[in-house]
């Protein structure tokens, strides 16, 4: 046995020695001929496919450059970006989350490159409408204006998915006001069906909450809440309305009490199985539903009665301040913004910002894009409720859960949501 352990140890040593170059620091490759790209989109999703095509295109145009692409994890980047970007181990271009708490935070601390000149020179500011530009520009860590620290090349928004067959079966029509929406849901409840598929363990519940808030809010409200451009009162009409509605909807059976134990993934799968007639969530499900829903006909409508909707430009391409090949990075970003790649993205189920709409084949996608454009034209982007402060996502999840579970009253829940919001806002606006 001792001999075995000894030989094992020697073998190990050999292995260690053999891979020693890997143990120590990175190879000093021909750094000017390498483009490091990181993103965390699924390779089968619209963005993943489009960006792969973009990489191929880039390779054609720059045959002497080696592309080093790394498939990253969303959680990983979310947690470690402040550390990674504060070092030399950075990529040249990477996908990153938009908002004050993420891109805003990094830009304020000097970790992202100011690409304003590039954006103007390459015409990105013409491609993106002012509403879409909001998430690309940050002044002192607050989005909306100022230098460009990233650029988005797709869009996303929250809408209502519904099971067309079930609507027909129960004789309900697509609602155009919130009241009609409630009536539709009441019809289902009366028939013994919980109408809303909701994953309250994760983000979906806060999106419903936010849509309710937005039904009573206006642009000024959004700018105050998201861009810190005005005062925010967590007990104002909009917030109170939404909190009370969540409680009411749970009591009336629109939202199942079980939903606090259901993650987003299960919510989507349940809708795909036809278990619920309605699901409120984002455009990121669209492509997946197109592939996976085979048993019934489905469609979407914008949250009835709202001018404002949760949504924005998609995740940003950012160029870290310490990146080594910024010019190449800009070239790559440019390609992802090009009509060719954007049209491909659209055809794969994503929401492009610069596609040739005549080339979009699928009527379902045409519908998706036209809904998105409606929001752009109405300047209706309200972003997402967890953006204003880092870590606010968990607070919102907790708070809305407590509302659904009935463990906090609307006033208590709103207080719970208020404290962390103001805490961060004060540190930023000082």
């Amino acid at each position, binding site marked *: 046995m001792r001999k075995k352990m000894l030989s094992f140890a020697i073998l190990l040593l050999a292995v260690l020695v053999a891979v020693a170059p890997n143990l120590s620091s990175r190879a000093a490759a021909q750094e000017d001929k390498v483009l490091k790209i990181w993103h965390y989109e699924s390779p089968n999703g619209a963005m993943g496919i489009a960006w792969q095509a973009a990489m191929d295109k880039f390779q054609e145009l720059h045959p002497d450059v080696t592309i080093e692409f790394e498939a990253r994890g969303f959680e990983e980047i979310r947690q470690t970006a*402040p550390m990674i970007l504060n070092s030399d181990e950075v990529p040249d271009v990477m996908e990153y989350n938009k908002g004050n708490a993420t891109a805003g*935070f990094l830009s304020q*601390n000097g970790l992202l490159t100011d690409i304003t000149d590039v954006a103007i020179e390459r015409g990105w500011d013409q491609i993106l409408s002012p509403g879409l530009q909001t998430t690309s520009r940050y002044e002192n860590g607050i989005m909306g204006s100022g230098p460009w620290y990233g650029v988005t090349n797709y869009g996303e928004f929250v809408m209502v998915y519904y099971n067309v067959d079930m609507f027909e079966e129960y004789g309900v029509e697509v609602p155009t006001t919130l009241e009609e929406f409630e009536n539709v849901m009441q019809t289902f409840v009366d028939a013994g069906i919980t109408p809303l598929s909701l994953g309250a363990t994760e983000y979906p519940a806060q999106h419903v909450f936010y849509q309710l808030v937005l039904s009573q809010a206006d642009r000024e409200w959004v700018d105050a809440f998201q861009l810190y451009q005005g005062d925010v009162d967590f007990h104002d009409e909009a917030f109170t309305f939404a909190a009370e509605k969540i409680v009411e909807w749970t009591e009336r059976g629109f939202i199942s009490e*079980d939903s606090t*134990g*259901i993650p987003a993934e299960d919510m989507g799968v349940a809708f795909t199985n036809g278990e619920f007639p309605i699901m409120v969530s984002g455009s990121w499900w669209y492509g997946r539903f197109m592939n996976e829903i085979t048993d019934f006909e489905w469609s979407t409508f914008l949250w009835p009665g709202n001018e404002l909707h949760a949504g924005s430009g998609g995740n940003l391409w950012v160029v870290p301040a310490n990146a080594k090949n910024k010019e190449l990075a800009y070239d790559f970003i440019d390609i992802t913004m090009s009509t060719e790649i954007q049209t491909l993205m659209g055809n794969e189920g994503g929401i492009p910002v610069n596609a040739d709409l005549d080339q979009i084949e699928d009527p379902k996608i045409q519908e998706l894009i036209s809904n998105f454009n409606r929001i752009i034209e109405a300047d209706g982007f309200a972003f997402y409720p967890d953006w204003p402060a880092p870590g606010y996502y968990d607070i919102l999840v907790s708070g809305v859960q407590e509302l659904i579970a009935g463990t906090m009253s609307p006033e208590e829940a709103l207080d719970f949501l208020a404290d962390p919001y103001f805490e961060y806002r004060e540190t930023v606006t000082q």
Partner: protein
Amino acid sequence: MTAQRSSLDRGYWVFMVPGALALLLVIIIPFLVNVAISFTEWNGITSPTFIGIENYERAAHDKTFWLSFKNNLYIIVSMTVIPTIVGLLLASFLYDYVANKIGKTAANIFRAGYYLPQILPVAIAGVVWRWILQPRWGVLNWLLGLVGIEPQNWLGDADIAIYSVMGIMVWFQIGYPLVIFMAALQRVDPELYEAASVDGANWFQKFVSITIHQIRPEIFVVVLMTLIHSLKIFAQIFVLTRGGPGRATMVPSYFSYQNFFERANIGYGATISTVMTVIIVVLTILFIRVQSRQELQEAL
């Protein structure tokens, strides 16, 4: 005895030097840095700002902070108390009855099977348990339905979420004491049992006065280590409930993680983890002193 010891045990300290050095660099100094950070306000990138004991004052008034420690007590029951007792009984059963009456291979198979939960990555275990405990189509509710019990919202009901987590932790943890105790039982001289049988002792008496007594070093170790793990528990909460519903399963480690990595509130996060560490260290000290005092009594 003292005279003999002094000539033998001079110079043993040399053997500790590599370990001590590594400990200093990798653990002690970072810990001291962490304590220093707890007196500052910092976002992790720019320079920290010294704010004295403000973070500690805040923690003292923070309801979530105290709630997280209270939840920890439940976790301790599920990660220390139950697994140790069950592990002891099961190890004894496998090592003695099963190995002798059914076969050593059988005992090994069972041991391997019971230990397997410790190998599954926590992230995957979390996903799978969420499927099992799913309120609408989860296996557990389906099984309970067969015997007429109402379906429950295991992880989403604030009243029972902590108990669900406890159950999962027991599942996760049992293999650990089991393997250690089964290895420990090999050190016990079978003749002790035979002698006791001759004296007329029954199974339980032998278990207590011989088995438990002989492997008490390992028992101490298991209890202390599982205690430490329960106080530090993080990954399982992260994948199962993220501290929810609401804050029903919030634990100190997750709370400090939220401050470190989500709120960019490094100073406050450092405060919480310093408090946690102090508590754990105090418990460790008490524990080890009791253990060494016991050993001293034995040696006499």
